[in-house]
């Protein structure tokens, strides 16, 4: 049983001998801590316990050290019985600060204001009385991590079980205290059920919440409106679920913003409705971020690279990531592929995956093929190597099938570049 030294001395609830007055005074000062901790743990709509706790301490009927025991006696599975057993003071299994004040009320009536009788520490008491001892909470009011609270708070407990990375969330400002203050049954559970109804898989819920914890503070009506809007735009239920799991911040954006984005993609790219749908469901991040980088990338493709409208359309529908790629890296890859490898626009438009690949990979493989004089990218030539095979295949298959050399040769060649 984990009890601090002081706890061992004070057994009797409510009847303290004068000898223990000093220890009671010390614990009296801890009342401030307890009050703020209670404020932290209770949701804001229940201010009553705070007042009650302070009343209790003033009367010096403070029953110290009972909370330790009570905290440890709580178990994750029994937390659901918290709210139903508030009034039952004898049933001290579930830990909740609300229990504290409920019990104290009944005890205050039993003991008169002047009768402060403290039991001797060596007095033998029965098991039931020992079990009723209240231990003050050891939770710190302020902490840098969520570690002290995770064992005691139901919300945090359930979040860890879902797979949420609390250590990542606590580094973001104010997110940690927000999570601790949430009430599982009132706030978290309805939204989780909403996401489940939407079709988001349970395994993905953890990563979704890690990336976007603010979905737990978004109002349910807003969430439902946005989902209804997406459904009205003929997105199927599965695609909406997939979009939400790929872009966790999607449902935090207003309907106007989503509408604006969808309209932009349809107009700018000149795509049909189904193609826009397809594009957005494959890369829902397009609906979340700002439109300026997308506009710049489109301008770069048109002016700097010199692609035609239909080619850009084909590239974007095949590889949507080009819209969000880094301009400088995109230019570097295109410059190498077009000028050094000598591949015309039409071929690049036919295999846009090459624009998505890593530059170093393309460069090393092309130079290796050139060294082996196998660099043939014209479809008319017999030993033609298509660009997607150049880029997609893993190293060993590339060496054996495309370059017809061994992996060691490739490594030796890499060291000569």
């Amino acid at each position, binding site marked *: *049983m*984990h009890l601090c030294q002081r706890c061992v001395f004070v057994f009797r609830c409510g009847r303290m001998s004068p000898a223990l007055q000093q220890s009671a005074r010390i614990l009296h000062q801890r009342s401030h801590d307890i009050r703020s901790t209670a404020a932290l743990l209770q949701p804001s709509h229940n201010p009553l316990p705070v007042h009650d706790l302070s009343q209790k301490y003033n009367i010096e009927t403070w029953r110290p050290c009972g909370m330790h*025991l009570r905290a*440890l*006696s*709580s*178990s994750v*599975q*029994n937390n659901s019985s918290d709210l139903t057993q508030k009034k039952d003071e004898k049933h001290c*299994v579930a830990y909740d600060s609300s229990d504290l004040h409920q019990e104290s009320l009944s005890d205050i009536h039993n003991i008169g204001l002047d009768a402060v009788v403290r039991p001797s520490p060596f007095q033998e008491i029965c098991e039931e009385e020992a*079990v009723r001892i209240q231990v003050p909470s050891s939770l710190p009011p302020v902490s840098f*991590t*969520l*570690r*002290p609270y*995770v*064992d005691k708070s139901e919300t*945090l*407990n359930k979040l*860890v079980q879902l*797979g*949420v*990375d*609390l*250590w*990542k969330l606590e580094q973001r400002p104010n997110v940690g205290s927000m999570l601790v203050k949430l009430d599982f049954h009132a706030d978290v559970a309805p939204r989780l059920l909403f996401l489940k109804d939407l079709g988001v898989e349970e395994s993905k819920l953890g990563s979704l919440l890690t990336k976007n914890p603010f979905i737990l503070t978004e109002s349910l009506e807003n969430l439902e409106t946005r989902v209804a809007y997406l459904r009205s735009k003929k997105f199927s239920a599965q695609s909406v679920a997939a979009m939400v799991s790929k872009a966790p911040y999607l449902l935090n954006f207003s309907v106007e913003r989503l509408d604006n984005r969808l309209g932009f993609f349809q107009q700018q790219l000149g795509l049909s409705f189904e193609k826009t749908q397809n594009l957005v469901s494959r890369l829902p991040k397009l609906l979340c971020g700002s439109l300026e980088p997308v506009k710049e990338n489109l301008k770069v493709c048109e002016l700097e690279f010199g692609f035609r409208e239909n080619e850009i359309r084909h590239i974007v529908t095949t590889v949507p990531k080009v819209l969000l790629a880094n301009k400088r890296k995109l230019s570097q890859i295109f410059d190498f592929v077009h000028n050094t490898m000598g591949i015309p626009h039409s071929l690049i438009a036919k295999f846009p995956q090459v624009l998505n690949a890593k*530059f*170093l990979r393309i460069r*090393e493989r092309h130079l290796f093929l050139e060294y082996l004089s196998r660099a043939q990218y014209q479809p008319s030539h017999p030993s033609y190597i298509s660009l997607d095979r150049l880029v997609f295949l893993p*190293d060993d298959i590339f060496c054996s099938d495309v370059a017809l050399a061994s992996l060691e040769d490739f*490594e030796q060649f*890499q*060291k*000569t*570049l």
Partner: protein
Amino acid sequence: MSTQAVRLFRKLDGLFAVYKPQGVHWKLVRDTIESNLLKELNSCPPPPRLAVQFQLLSSGENSSSTDLTLSPSMVPSLADHPQVTGPQFRKVHVGIGHRLDAFSSGVLVLGLGKTNGLLERLCKSHVTRDYTLEGEFGKATDNFCHTGRVVERTTYDHVTQDKLERVLAMIQGANQKALIMYSQVDLQTQEAYELALKGLLYPHGKSPPVLTGLRCIHFKPPHFTLEVQCVNETQKYLRKLIHEVGLELRTTAVCSGVRRARDGPFKVENALTRQQWTTDNITQAIAQFRSTTRKIRKSGIYRQTAAISNTSIQEHKIKGHDDAQNFSGGTMVDRVSPETRDEERT
């Protein structure tokens, strides 16, 4: 408590060489290796602490009543769950030896753990480095690279290999003089003569870049390739060297590639390529270089044979053997300051 991850972390201690690809900043290389190592180390988190919890469990088969009583049980504490604490290892000390700028490629020496302290000693010591410089006649740019803004274009038809060799010999002569001057050795003495013969002269203390070896290995106008052994250099200096070679030949030249083939005892054959930057390969490489690391640690100032004259450069191919002999010999020649030597003579 030694878990598998902690044991692996303790093993990551030593020097190894990596082949840096061209166009990549050296910091990116260092960060990539650090994140690969951290990924491996954090793959098996430590077991959580057990805390006592009083749970409501059925009293057992003895009592017939369905009373739930408190009973203690050891339950893993959620405060030690990896999702709450985060990864066990957040940083691995990966140190870097002589830096390579983004335009160059080649051997880059990295150190792990406590051996990082050795890297400093290696840097301060007078190990020579081996570079392969590729040049192109006909143009001059603002940053001496072929990717820079072109400033001047010239003809290069008059350049022959003979003229190039002559220019290289002149440069080498100047560098020899600089080597002797900075090695603070009075060449009139017998010891100095013996040192120079063996090729053990090296610059003492701070000195500008000194080329101890220079030759042309490939000449096909406009492209040519030089091989350089040098001390205290920077890659920009080497590119400027190409530019100066061009100027001496009454034409202009730009550098189209700088490749470090050797950094002290770390050669290209043992360097790890990009696909090999994994924990297993790195631990193998550390084991491979363990003897070299020990020699660096033991010797006061690490030494390397500097091939000075042109004739000895032709034995470049067996340089590897020379190095090996040097390590096993471990010759330590006393460096006598000029004043004491004068006293001895008088």
